[in-house]
Every structure is written in C-alpha cells, then in structure tokens.
C-alpha cells in the first residue's frame, strides 16, 4: 500500500517533470532507537519511481559518522538534499530532521524542486540581504506534522 495516493503521485510526476538536473537525497538513519526511520525510508522510496532525476542514498549515522558530521547531522531520521550540476555535487544546505510527513512532505518536495533547477522565488531585496551574510548561520524551523 503506497503512502502517496495515486492522484498525488500523478501531481508529483508533473511537478518533477520540470527538473533539469539530478537530485540526491541523503537519508541518515540508525538501526536502533529510531522510531520513524522506517517510515521516512518508505516515504523517500516512493520518490525515485516518480522521476529519473531523484535518487536516495542511505547513510548510517553510526557507521558513516564522518559523512554525517560533514553534513552537520547528529540524529536520525534526517535528510540532506544535494544536486549535481556539470559533474559536480552541490549541497543545498537544506536539511530535514524527523519524518517528512504532513506539511513537511510538501516542504521536502519544494526543496527537491529547488535543488532540481527550479528558480528560487525570493525577492531581489531578500537576495541582497542574503548576499550580505558573511559568516556561517544556522536556521532551525520547528514544525509539527499537522
């Protein structure tokens, strides 16, 4: 039984059709003490069949600690979104902590489309502010599934 309904699958397929480059979702997981890792994996596994541009790579938080650290991930489930452009891999620096269910799923899809080449929507003014950030800044947006 798929988690994404067939009508939603169709809508996602249409949205993903505008992608112009490969997007890889790094899925950080751990075997023990992770209630929603399986659910997250199930949600993510339903995306690649909807677009040839999307792949999932599983990273074990414990066994591949160096990779997790490189992406600033210290808990599971977590997702980091990367994309490929001209043979190089780029990190979007967009992360999801927890299962991407409910509203988070919509945010995840938006992030995948952005990574996949959709033009960013931010205004010129906002971009100017962003360009003025001259040191590393971490933003955390707390949400709930409903």
């Amino acid at each position, binding site marked *: 039984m798929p988690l994404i309904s067939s009508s939603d699958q169709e809508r996602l397929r249409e949205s993903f059709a505008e992608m112009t480059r490969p997007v890889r979702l790094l899925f950080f997981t751990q075997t023990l003490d992770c209630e929603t890792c399986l659910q997250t994996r199930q949600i993510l596994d339903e995306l690649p069949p909807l677009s040839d541009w999307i792949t999932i790579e599983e990273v074990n938080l414990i066994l591949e600690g160096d990779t997790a650290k490189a992406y600033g991930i210290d808990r599971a489930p977590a997702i980091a979104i990367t994309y490929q452009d001209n043979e190089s891999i780029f990190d979007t620096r967009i992360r*999801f*902590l927890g299962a991407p269910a409910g509203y*988070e799923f919509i*945010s995840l899809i938006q992030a995948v489309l952005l990574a996949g080449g959709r033009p960013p929507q931010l205004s010129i*003014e*906002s971009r100017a502010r962003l360009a003025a950030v001259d040191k*590393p*800044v971490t*933003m*955390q947006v707390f949400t709930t599934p409903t």
Partner: protein
Amino acid sequence: MAFLSPNITAFAVEATEFPDLARRYRVNGVPKTVVDEEVEILGALPESAFVEQALARFTIDKP
C-alpha cells in the same frame, strides 16, 4: 535562503520527534524559527519581514 547563501544552513525540525530540541529552544507553538540560537521568530511572516528579522544581526548594514 540556504540554497541562495553559502553561509546559511537550514534545518526543518519535526518538533514532536525531537522533544529535547523543542525544550531547548522553548518551542511552544509552530512554526518557530531559531537563527543561530540568538534570534527567535514565532509564526509565519511575509517573506521580506521574515528574511529581515532572521538576518538583521548577521548582515553588514548595506543601503
């Protein structure tokens, strides 16, 4: 924002799954945004106000 600025990393955190983080950042309502543990924004704002509030402390003043 993270996509457009190499200095920004953005986490979407599912608060109920990580109660330790929700407690640490005193998340009593969502959405709540915490920027570098210094700036807190409760609720959703229009884009320009959100970007301004989130980054005011982290940008050199430019006209």
